[in-house]
């Protein structure tokens, strides 16, 4: 079990993508499935496991995130098989998509497994740059423009992260030397950092970089526009995988920042996320198409994950994260079918499915839609319960109990706006509009089933106790 084995499928995918054969499409999809095998193996070995010296260390959090990401990757690959039935895409674009998908995987594995701020950043930048080209596989002027947009805003965000990383490194270098970039050493020596102000400044800057990348305030709409312009599997990759890499970085940095000064971290993140949810909820209320709706709701959930994590409920954050990582790509993939009769037709999108496949499809999609607004059997329901509970219990220890309750009520009010919007959209999808026939292909349905099964697997007692053991 080593690094080569982890990277091998991606490298094979990269090489195979240069072959010009009709059958290559299936070979590429197959290699993309194979990525799961070494990751499951990594999941089973005892933790922490040194993959590559002290630079890449697999611990429980890493492998959980990596497993979730690889399942999402498989679902996306399945949906890619029938992409050309829904939208116009050239075979060349297909191969290029997979070429950059391979680079994306390499960057992702590095950034998720890294125990080193520098390597985390390198992996993230690699993943960001490779997604730029994936957006452009859609040969439209809008996609071209948005690819540039993503390139520039993404580069600024990632540069901010590096800037913060350098400041944090500078703050800890006097005590740790060259090893001040390693997360575990930093965490162990967090209390001894000689200049906490410098560390907090670096943390704040890199956090703002990450938040911009996840579409938080003030860049709420840029992800939505980009996902609208690109193909739906790309949007699924963004919400399912790339954001998970960013959020893992936030988890690691904030763990150290909690040790340095918990109050500052909490207030900073709390204000930032509430502001984000405040704006996003109204943006969702005005969303007129599926892509923007789902992408904005992704921003909202990311904000919730972040707020749960910093308010001392890592279990809730991880559960919410897993549930979101499965639900959102599933919804994005289903937009391929939902929008097959025009982009902005919400009314009637869930009508007109014939046969067993169609039946299963609309039932699954409606379940997903109801699950994303955390109706009870969904894992999000439990994670939000845990999360708000943890926020109250954190506030109990301080004197801000009343403020915290007010904040939670405010958050719930905002969430109810989103809830209302989703329910009304669901009603209009199901009960309004004309009945138009839409076809569902087996591979997409299979992807949705995979996501549904893994969602249910999240609720198994074994997986819940695994998540608790991470926390």
């Amino acid at each position, binding site marked *: 079990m080593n690094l080569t084995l982890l990277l091998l499928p991606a490298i094979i995918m990269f090489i195979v993508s240069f072959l010009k054969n009709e059958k290559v499409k299936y070979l590429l999809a197959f290699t993309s499935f194979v990525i799961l095998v070494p990751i499951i193996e990594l999941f089973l070995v005892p933790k922490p496991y040194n993959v590559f010296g002290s630079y890449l260390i697999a611990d429980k959090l890493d492998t959980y995130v990596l497993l979730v990401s690889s399942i999402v990757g498989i679902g996306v690959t399945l949906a890619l098989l029938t992409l050309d039935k829904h939208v116009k895409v050239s075979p060349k674009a297909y191969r290029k998509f997979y070429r950059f998908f391979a680079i994306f995987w390499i960057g992702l594995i590095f950034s998720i497994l890294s125990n080193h701020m520098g390597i985390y950043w*390198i992996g993230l930048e690699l993943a960001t*740059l490779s997604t*730029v080209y994936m957006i452009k596989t859609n040969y439209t002027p809008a996609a071209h423009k948005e690819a540039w947009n993503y390139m520039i805003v993404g580069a600024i965000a990632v540069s901010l992260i590096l800037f913060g990383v350098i400041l944090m490194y500078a703050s800890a270098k006097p005590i740790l030397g060259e090893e001040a970039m390693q997360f575990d050493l930093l965490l162990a020596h967090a209390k001894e950092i000689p200049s906490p102000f410098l560390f907090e400044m670096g943390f704040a800057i890199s956090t703002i970089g990450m938040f911009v990348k996840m579409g938080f305030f003030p860049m709420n709409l840029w992800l939505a526009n980009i996902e609208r312009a690109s193909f739906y599997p790309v949007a699924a990759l963004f919400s399912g995988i790339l954001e998970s890499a960013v959020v893992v970085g936030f988890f690691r940095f904030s763990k150290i920042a909690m040790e340095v000064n918990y109050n500052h971290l909490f207030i900073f993140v709390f204000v930032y996320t509430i502001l984000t949810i405040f704006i996003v909820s109204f943006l969702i209320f005005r969303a007129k198409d599926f892509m923007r709706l789902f992408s904005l709701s992704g921003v909202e959930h990311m904000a919730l994950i972040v707020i749960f994590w910093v308010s001392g409920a890592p279990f809730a954050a991880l559960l919410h994260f897993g549930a979101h990582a499965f639900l959102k790509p599933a919804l994005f993939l289903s937009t391929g079918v939902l929008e097959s009769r025009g982009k902005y037709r919400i009314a009637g999108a869930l009508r007109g499915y014939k046969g067993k496949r169609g039946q299963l499809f609309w039932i699954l999609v409606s379940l997903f839609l109801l699950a994303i607004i955390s109706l009870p059997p969904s894992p999000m329901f439990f994670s939000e319960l845990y999360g708000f509970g943890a926020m109250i219990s954190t506030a109990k220890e301080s004197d801000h109990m009343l403020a915290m309750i007010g904040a939670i009520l405010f958050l719930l009010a905002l969430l109810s706006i989103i809830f209302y919007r989703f329910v009304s959209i669901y009603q209009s999808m199901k009960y309004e509009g004309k009945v138009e026939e839409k076809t569902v292909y087996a591979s997409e349905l299979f992807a949705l089933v995979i996501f549904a099964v893994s969602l249910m697997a999240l609720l198994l007692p074994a997986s819940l106790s695994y998540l608790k053991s991470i926390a």
Partner: protein
Amino acid sequence: MVDFLIGLFLASLIVALFTTRLFRLLLWYSMNSLMLGILALSIGNSIDDKAMIITGIMTIVIKAIGIPFVLKNLSQKFHFVRQIIPEIKVQYAIMLVPAILVFTFYLSEPITHMIHTNANYVAISISSLFLSLLLMMEHKNVAPKIVGFLSMENALFLLGITATNGMPMLVELGIFFDLLMAIVVINLLFHKEELKV
């Protein structure tokens, strides 16, 4: 000596802000990177750090010569607009640039008390970060935006060199690799491909 180089670094960035021609902008970017490379070489020489010297040589070869050359070729191949007039008028830029400088200098004052070696350079690298953001903001065309992004990378590098006396070698090589990847992606983005089904 280091002060002098750092002054030239900031000066070339400020001149780049007022440039209205693409090739001149590339020249100033190249000067900016050259100063960064010489700075890395001289600091590396004085603290006897081999990694920093390698970084300096790589900076000069890749950033000061390679990237401007590639960008110039790209601009000729894809017929960029070579007259790049800033969106922010000069009279406002004259007020804006000093304002940014004062702001960042005061912003980084608490930091300069904490870093004992080369404290001022942190302030200058933060201000050059802001100035490269301004460079990205004040142009509508893509090419100057790319140059702005690259000079932002330079500002980060300056911070890495001066605030921490050089980052670990592995990280610096990785940053260079990502930069090359960025150039490849930029190259690909310029190809306007038509839909052939």
